């Protein structure tokens, strides 16, 4: 039973086209390795960069792959000014980057899909107002909206909680800057589905509007939502990195990849290139792989290309 199910899944269109696309396979495994590395950072990382007792200032500015002149310890990707292992800080930083990215996209998705369903299914005044707001927001670049929301939300958080709350404020700001795409696509799809017989039938059967939206229409708009979610994830990771790089994101006590790049930029002129180079490369590889995966997903799920 189990085996036949597995083999059926293996034979499905979806996995078939996955196996046929080297880009998809490679980027999937890259993302998988990075995500696993981030999730299991405490197990994988050779050092804990947030535990002061494991740091030795003498290890500061060790070059990658070379034993330190004072202690003789070697670090794969070198260390920063305080002797923190760059490889470990990247793993922990990626944890925050991915966490913010995933949560922000989830937030944007739930908000956008809900508003899109309502706008598409009920139409009328509510729908018009929702879509007007979406149009207005769309005229401003998402990153600008995220910065503004971050600034306002930061103003609302009590001063002593600001550093602690920064990650949640980031999620809120990036998520809120990104719901429009979801809402527009879901509304469009809902407008089409609403006219179809099965929805009419469910409606005649006395199903409530909420039930129809969730049980009947939602499953039929999952495809495009999934594509937007993947592409949004890449954008959210870059948005988070940009905000943190600008100093209006994750605080230095909880450095994300963007914060690490911000810190590394300070050492650019003194020749410690590895403190900047490795976090930047990690960010690039991560964003690029998620993007490529999203592109592939869009092609597979696009019925017009089949």
């Amino acid at each position, binding site marked *: 039973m189990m085996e036949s199910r597995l083999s059926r899944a293996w034979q499905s269109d979806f996995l078939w086209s996955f196996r046929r696309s080297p880009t998809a396979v490679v980027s999937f495994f890259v993302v998988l390795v990075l995500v696993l590395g981030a999730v299991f950072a405490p197990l994988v990382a050779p050092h804990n960069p947030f535990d002061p007792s494991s740091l030795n200032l003498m290890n500061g500015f060790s070059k990658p792959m070379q034993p330190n002149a004072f202690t003789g310890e070697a670090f794969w990707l070198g260390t920063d000014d305080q002797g923190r292992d760059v490889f470990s800080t990247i793993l922990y930083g990626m944890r925050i980057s991915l966490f913010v990215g995933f949560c922000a996209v989830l937030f944007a998705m739930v908000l956008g899909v809900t508003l899109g369903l309502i706008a598409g299914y009920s139409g009328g005044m509510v729908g018009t107002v929702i879509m007007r707001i979406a149009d207005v927001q769309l005229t401003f*670049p998402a990153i600008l909206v995220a910065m503004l929301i971050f600034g306002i939300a930061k103003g609302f958080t009590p001063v002593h909680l600001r550093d602690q709350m920064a990650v949640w404020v980031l999620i809120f700001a990036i998520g809120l800057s990104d719901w429009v795409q979801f809402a527009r696509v879901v509304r469009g799809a809902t407008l089409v589905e609403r006219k179809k017989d099965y929805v009419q039938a469910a409606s005649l059967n006395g199903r409530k509007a909420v039930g129809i939206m969730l049980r009947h229409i939602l499953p039929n708009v999952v495809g495009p939502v999934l594509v937007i979610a993947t592409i949004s994830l890449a954008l959210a990771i870059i948005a988070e990195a940009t905000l943190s790089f*600008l100093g209006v994101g994750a605080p230095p006590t909880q450095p994300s990849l963007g914060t690490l790049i911000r810190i590394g930029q300070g050492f650019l002129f003194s020749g410690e290139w590895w403190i900047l180079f490795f976090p930047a490369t990690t960010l*690039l590889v991560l964003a690029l792989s998620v993007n490529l995966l999203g592109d592939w997903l869009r092609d597979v799920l696009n019925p017009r290309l089949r």
Partner: protein
Amino acid sequence: MLAFVIRRVFQSFVVLLVVGLVAFSMFRFVGDPIENMLGQERTGADIERLRGQLGLDQPFPVQYFKFLTGAAQGNFGVSYRQGRPVADIIAERLPATLELASVSAILAIVFGLGLGVFTAIRRDGWAANTIMTLSLVGVSLPTFLIGILLIYLFAVELNMLPSFGRGEVVDLGWWRTGFLTESGLKALILPSITLGLYQMTLIMRLVRSEMLEVLRQDYIRFARARGLREKSVLFRHALKNTLVPVITVTGLQLGSIIAFAIITETVFQWPGVGLLFINAIQFVDIPVMAAYLMLISVMFVGINLIVDLLYFVIDPRLRGDSSKATA
């Protein structure tokens, strides 16, 4: 046409009112203005007096209206951090941003158009292919990494160009320009490339795909059959017709250039309004944030309005009454 213009202007007005409401709410509800302005030694009478002076005892709509009329006259209050009128600070820094943005926009348009046409004509050439591949990398690189990369190459390794600041500026009274000194021009190079690169790739890819589309049309084949010179076919017949969507996108991108200047200005410590805004967020300097929000929305809404109206000027099909156009 007139109805359309009136509707668009009205819509823009509503958007600005909403943004104004957001900006005003920031003033009103983020922190307590009284708290920010009075020191530790204050009495209940002081608070009441200032509340009356600032008009905070009046109803919300009245306060909102006062804020809007103030904003329209360029009065945004006093920066919490610098203790100077926000309008002065912005007026001082706006030239830097506008100079950077205009140079980037010109770079993006000139190179975007040129490379777009080139890659469309030499579609299968190795140079065109290289440019297209590079443009993919350019699109996926975050702006701030491009800036850092350029700093590393041209400031750290080659030591040719400055990595931060505006260089020497010449004071023209109300406008301080970096265009007139050598160090000012040198300082412009890296930031303007950083800021313009993304827009350039966008324009280039758009021009290329539009151009390829147009070159397939019958009238191009016909123009060639008439024996017109290739240059005339490409530029007078083909390029002219690709320009409608290109102008739209370019116009809308101008707004993004001003917004993305925030990132570039931070990387290069360029003393413009974007850097001012980032510092305002870091220190929760609400008046500066609100003023920047209003400023940038006026620019955005204005640009969008102009682009929409430009449609009529560029596309003859939209001019005149619609019955003639469809006939």
